[in-house]
C-alpha cells in the first residue's frame, strides 16, 4: 500500500486541479429556445460526464453573460450532494454564455520524501501566504497557475455572438459554426484560442451523454490544426461534453507553469 500512495501523491501534485479522474460538466435542459422561456442547468463532477453520482460543481464563480453583453444573475440556485442547479429566464433574444471560471496558483514540493502542497484545498492563494508558507528553495518546488473554464451556451430566438467574445485569457473556444446550431449529419467547426491566439495541436476529447447506457465511453479524440480549428461530426443527437487542456510556461508570478483547461457542453439536434 505504501508503494502505491507515493506515486499517486506525485501524480496529484502534477495536476493541481481536481481534474484527475472527474469530469466537470454543466448540463442545460435545452439550448434552442424562444424568448421568455426558462431553462434549467445542473452542474457536477463525475467520472462520466452528466452522470450525477459524485459531487456538485462549485458555482462560486458562475457568470452568465446575456446576449447584449450584460451579466445576469441565475435564479433558484442551490447545491445538492450530487449536483448544483440554477434556473435562467431568457428575457433577451440571442445567445447566452454560462461560464464558471476558476483560477488559482498552487505550489507543491518535496519535504523529506513527503509531498507538501499549498494552499490547502478550498483556501485561496495569497502572495503573503505564499511568501510565508512555501520554502523558496524546497526540493522539486513546482508552482502552477491554473485557469479552468467550464461553459455552456443557450439561445433564445436568433443566435448572436456578443456574449461569446473571447476574453483573451487562457484556453477558450470560439464558434466557427454556431454553438447552438448543431445537427447530426452536419459537421461542426470550432476554434481553440490560447490567450486570444489560435491554439495549435491541442488534443480535444468529446464524449456523448448516456455513457451509463452503453458499454464503452466511445470518446472522440481530435487535434486542432495550425489555425486552432477542429471539425467533427456528431454520431447521434443529444448532449455532448467537450474538453481540452494545455500546459505552458506563460504563468503569472510566482507560478512557473500554467495549466489552462476548457470544458463545455453542447446540444446536438436531429435535423
Amino acid at each position, binding site marked *: 500500500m505504501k508503494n502505491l500512495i507515493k506515486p499517486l501523491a506525485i501524480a496529484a501534485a502534477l495536476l493541481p486541479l481536481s481534474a484527475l479522474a472527474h469530469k466537470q460538466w454543466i448540463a442545460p435542459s435545452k439550448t434552442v429556445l424562444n424568448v*421568455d422561456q426558462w431553462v434549467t442547468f445542473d452542474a457536477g463532477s463525475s467520472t462520466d460526464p452528466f452522470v450525477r453520482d459524485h459531487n456538485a460543481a462549485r458555482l462560486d464563480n458562475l457568470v452568465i453573460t446575456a446576449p447584449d453583453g450584460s451579466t445576469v444573475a441565475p*435564479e433558484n440556485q442551490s447545491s445538492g450532494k450530487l449536483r448544483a442547479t440554477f434556473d435562467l*429566464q431568457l428575457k433577451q433574444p440571442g445567445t447566452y454564455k454560462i461560464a464558471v471560471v476558476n483560477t488559482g496558483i498552487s505550489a507543491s514540493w518535496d519535504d523529506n520524501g513527503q509531498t507538501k502542497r499549498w494552499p490547502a484545498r478550498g483556501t485561496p492563494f495569497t502572495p503573503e501566504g505564499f511568501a510565508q508558507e512555501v520554502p523558496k528553495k524546497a526540493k522539486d518546488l513546482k508552482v502552477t497557475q491554473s485557469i479552468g473554464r467550464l461553459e455552456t451556451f443557450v439561445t433564445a430566438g*436568433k443566435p448572436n455572438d456578443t456574449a461569446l467574445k473571447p476574453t483573451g485569457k487562457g484556453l477558450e473556444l470560439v464558434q466557427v459554426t454556431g454553438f447552438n446550431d448543431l445537427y447530426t449529419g452536419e459537421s461542426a467547426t470550432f476554434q481553440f484560442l490560447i490567450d486570444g491566439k489560435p491554439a495549435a495541436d491541442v488534443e480535444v476529447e468529446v464524449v456523448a451523454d448516456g455513457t451509463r447506457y452503453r458499454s464503452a465511453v466511445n470518446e472522440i479524440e481530435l487535434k486542432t490544426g495550425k489555425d486552432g480549428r477542429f471539425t467533427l461530426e456528431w454520431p447521434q443527437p443529444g448532449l455532448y461534453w467537450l474538453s481540452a487542456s494545455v500546459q505552458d510556461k506563460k504563468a503569472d508570478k510566482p507560478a512557473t507553469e500554467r495549466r489552462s483547461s476548457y470544458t463545455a457542453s453542447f446540444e446536438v439536434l436531429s435535423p
Partner: protein
Amino acid sequence: MRHRIPLVLCSMLPGTVLAANLDLTIEIPRLDVAEYHRPYVAVWLEREDKSVAANLAVWYQQPKKGEKVPAAAAAGAPGGMQGAAANPQGGAKWLPDLRQWWRRSGRELTLPADGITGATRAPGEHAMSFNVADLPAGQYKLVVEAAREEGGRELVDVPFQVPAKDAQVIKAKGSRELGAISLSVKP
C-alpha cells in the same frame, strides 16, 4: 373542412423575378391516441441552399383573448415566475419544436406575423392558395413540418421548379404526423 386562404406575398426587391401560383392541400391525419393535441405546422419555400424563400403558414396555439395573470400564480410562484401560468404568448414557447422551421427562419420572425400565423387545425384536409411573387427562376422545395405534443415530428418536402413549364400536381405523403400533401404549380 376546406378553407381557401388567398395570399399574396409582395416585396420591393428589384430585378427580374417571377411569381408562382401554388395550390396546396395538407392532410392532418386523424390519430387514434389517448391524448390528442393538434399539431403545430409550418409551411415554407426553401431554396437549394436551404435558405427560406418565403414563409407561407405557421399554425400554433394562439394566445387566448383577454387572458389575465391569476393573482395566485403571481403571488405564489417562486423566483419571478409571475405570468408563466397565464401564458400570454399562447404556445409560442413550443415553436422551437418545429425544429427546421425554427432554425431556418422562425427564430428570426416577429410573431404573430400577418397572413402567416394562425391557429392550429383539426384533422382533415386543409387547402390553401399562395401567389408567391419575386421568385427568381430555380429549384425550390415546399416544406411542411409538423410537431405534436405527446407525439412526434415530421418533415415532408415537395420539390418544384420556377417557372413551371406546364401546370402540374406534385404529391407527397407523410408517414405519421402528416398525411397526403398535394401541390399544384401553375406557370
